[in-house]
């Protein structure tokens, strides 16, 4: 059977030598190398569940009176988009599980890409010759955020409508072209009729196709360059030590796919997410409170909350307040990330190709900067729920906001400095891990 198939294919494609090479390809083994694969499999789950959802979703905002399974909303005016999500959740068999799986998979997809990026950053895997894949990977992360937000906005519920409302205001805040851009993107002054239909096309066609294309390129480049590996006995810049694709690595990879799918299925069945029927349909003059976006936009939400009431005005022109936290901050963030491999090469003067990874301690400055950056975004992320915290602690929200503002300025440099000291001590003592670090190493500076 295998013999006949190989012959048949080789006769037509002459692919045998490639196939042989491919099957024998060696992949290094480390749990952190699975993060990218995890993202890939989440994307696959998203496509599979998403196709199912798209058969039932109706992106139109024309209104009708809801009559259906969900009693509390009977008789309420809702858009067709919102109604179709309720029907999908309550009347289509297996519909709710599919919808919730889709949402959970999206959250994990972005988390996996993010942690994958951190792994690449802290191990220096972006260094020559892998700069192109760093750029592609970062673009994939941005596309993931975009598709997460566009999908989240589709059900036309009160919570996501609020998100769209803020997004519109943020676009509006862009100097000179902002008003035009907001009108072109949304089809007119908020809430224009067209936005849900447009987001639908963006969400199920434009961005997924871009993601699929870039992922293919990303993988092809990994294939071509061969995966990096951690240093260790027998591992050099000139070899790859690991498992062959066929059968071991492939089997493990398949196991990962089924494993992720299992987790997503269990979450989708047992852990409720985005219950849009509780939020109610979108009404321009209503607002849910408290309101938090999906986790991956938490840092932007937090930035909007922490940024002080400042803006620039002159001669009747202005640079409105949301511009700084919601346009400038992500602009700087992603530009810095895009440029990082090149900045680092410039600053360290290291332009050699690298295939062996670094440990965090090998490059204390990079590690410290990374941790400081992470601390910054972590504070922003936490600040996105300042209202919830204020409720729990019964402290006025203003005090909490002020505390976060201080934390935002103090925590990153402190975290960075501590990291630097620790990494430096690890490097000097050669201790295995932080737990093995002798205390004296922390108090003394380098003495070579």
């Amino acid at each position, binding site marked *: 059977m295998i013999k006949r198939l190989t012959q048949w294919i080789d006769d037509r494609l002459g692919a045998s030598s490639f196939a042989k090479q491919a099957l*024998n*390809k*060696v992949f290094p*083994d480390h749990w952190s190398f699975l993060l990218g694969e995890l993202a890939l499999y989440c994307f696959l789950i998203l496509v599979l569940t998403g196709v199912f959802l798209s058969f039932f979703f109706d992106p139109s905002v024309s209104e009708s009176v809801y009559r259906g399974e969900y009693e509390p909303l009977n008789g309420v005016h809702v858009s067709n988009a919102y109604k179709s999500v309720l029907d999908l959740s309550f009347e289509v068999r*297996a519909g709710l*599980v599919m919808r919730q*799986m889709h949402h959970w998979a999206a959250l994990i997809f972005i988390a996996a890409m993010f942690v994958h990026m951190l792994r690449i950053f802290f191990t220096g895997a972006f260094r020559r010759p892998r700069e192109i894949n760093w750029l592609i990977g970062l673009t994939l992360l941005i596309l993931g955020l975009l598709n997460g937000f566009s999908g989240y906005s589709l059900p036309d519920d009160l919570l996501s409508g609020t998100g769209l*409302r*803020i997004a*519109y*205001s*943020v676009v509006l*805040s862009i100097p000179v072209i902002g*008003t*035009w851009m907001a009108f072109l*993107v*949304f*089809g*007119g*002054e*908020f809430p224009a009729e067209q936005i849900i239909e447009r987001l639908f096309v963006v969400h199920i066609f434009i961005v997924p196709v871009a993601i699929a294309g870039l992922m293919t390129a990303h993988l092809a480049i990994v294939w071509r360059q*061969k995966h990096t590996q951690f240093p260790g006995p027998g591992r050099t*810049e000139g*070899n*790859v*030590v690991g*498992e*062959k694709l066929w*059968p*071991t690595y492939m*089997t493990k990879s398949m*196991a990962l796919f089924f*494993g992720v799918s*299992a987790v997503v*299925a*269990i979450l*989708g*069945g*047992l852990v409720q997410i985005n219950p849009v029927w509780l939020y109610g349909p979108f009404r*321009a*003059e*209503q*607002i*849910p*409170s*408290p309101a938090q976006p999906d986790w991956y936009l938490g840092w932007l*939400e937090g930035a*909007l*909350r922490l940024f*002080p*009431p*400042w803006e620039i005005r002159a*001669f*009747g022109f202005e*640079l*409105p*307040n*949301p511009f700084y936290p919601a346009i400038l901050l992500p602009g700087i963030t992603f530009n810095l990330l895009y440029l990082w491999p090149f900045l680092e090469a410039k600053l360290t003067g290291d332009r050699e*190709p690298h*295939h062996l990874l670094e440990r965090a301690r090998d490059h204390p400055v990079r590690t410290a900067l990374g941790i400081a950056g992470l601390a910054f975004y972590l504070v922003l992320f936490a600040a996105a729920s300042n209202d919830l915290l204020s409720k729990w602690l019964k402290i006025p929200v203003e005090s909490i906001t002020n505390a976060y503002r201080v934390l935002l300025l103090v925590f990153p440099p402190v975290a960075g400095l501590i990291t630097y000291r620790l990494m430096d001590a690890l490097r000097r003592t050669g201790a295995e891990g932080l737990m093995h670090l002798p205390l004296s190493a922390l108090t003394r500076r380098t003495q070579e």
Partner: protein
Amino acid sequence: MENQGERSIRWIATAFGVSIVASLGLAVVYLLGGQPQAEGALLGAALGGISVGLVLWAKHLMPGGPEVQEREIRPEVAEAQAEVEETLQAGAEPIERRTFLAKMLGAAFAAFGIALLFPIRSLGGAPGRALFRTAWRPGSRVVRADGSPVRPEELAVDGILTVFPETHTEAADSQTLLIHLPEDVQPPGPPGWVPEGFVAFSKICTHAGCPVGLYEAESKKLFCPCHQSVFDVVDGAKPTEGPATRPLPQLPLSIDDSGFLVAQGDFEEPVGPGFWNRGRDD
């Protein structure tokens, strides 16, 4: 050794078995009408069984390595690069010689690029003055979201109501908060805008446009739940906390001959979040 292998086989077979049973269970649940929790759990078990079986299989019964493979550090040699350069150069030569044509081609592309922008224009109307106006006109009756007009006696002291201009309850930019202030409060805004303690402010937050949903009658403050801006109604809805930089615009009110609340005109400045030319009146 043999024992170990056999044990693995048993575990792997069990994992696949669990998966089979779960899949069958899934079919049964589906046919019985479906139940989300059961579906999720069974689907999880069906997929998880396969996953566990595969992991054990790969770990215990497949070649584990480590295998070593060579990696060419620089796949392409310098000669090949030079050849590519040469080929490119040779091909470009006849193009470069015709600089005029090349320039014309460039111009044609540029012109076409600009022409391509026009369909984008179809995506939405021009902003024009849309952001500077709302649907409030002199004499517009103040109505609730269901279209019913409001008489002063219908809103108790310290009460609050979301209102629209009559026949424009769909105009999102015209949503307005009507508040009945107690007599002892000095009415905010220009004289004559607050008949009998009825004051109206745009409901759209001047920060990022969320409806300012919460009113605390005791402190006379409005709260925006989006980023926690606070507006002081007595002080002309000036922001006292949070990221908002401007007060909520105030709507001039009066009471018409039939005893209904009406607007004296539109807001005097654009409502809602800022934009670059908000302060330009031309």
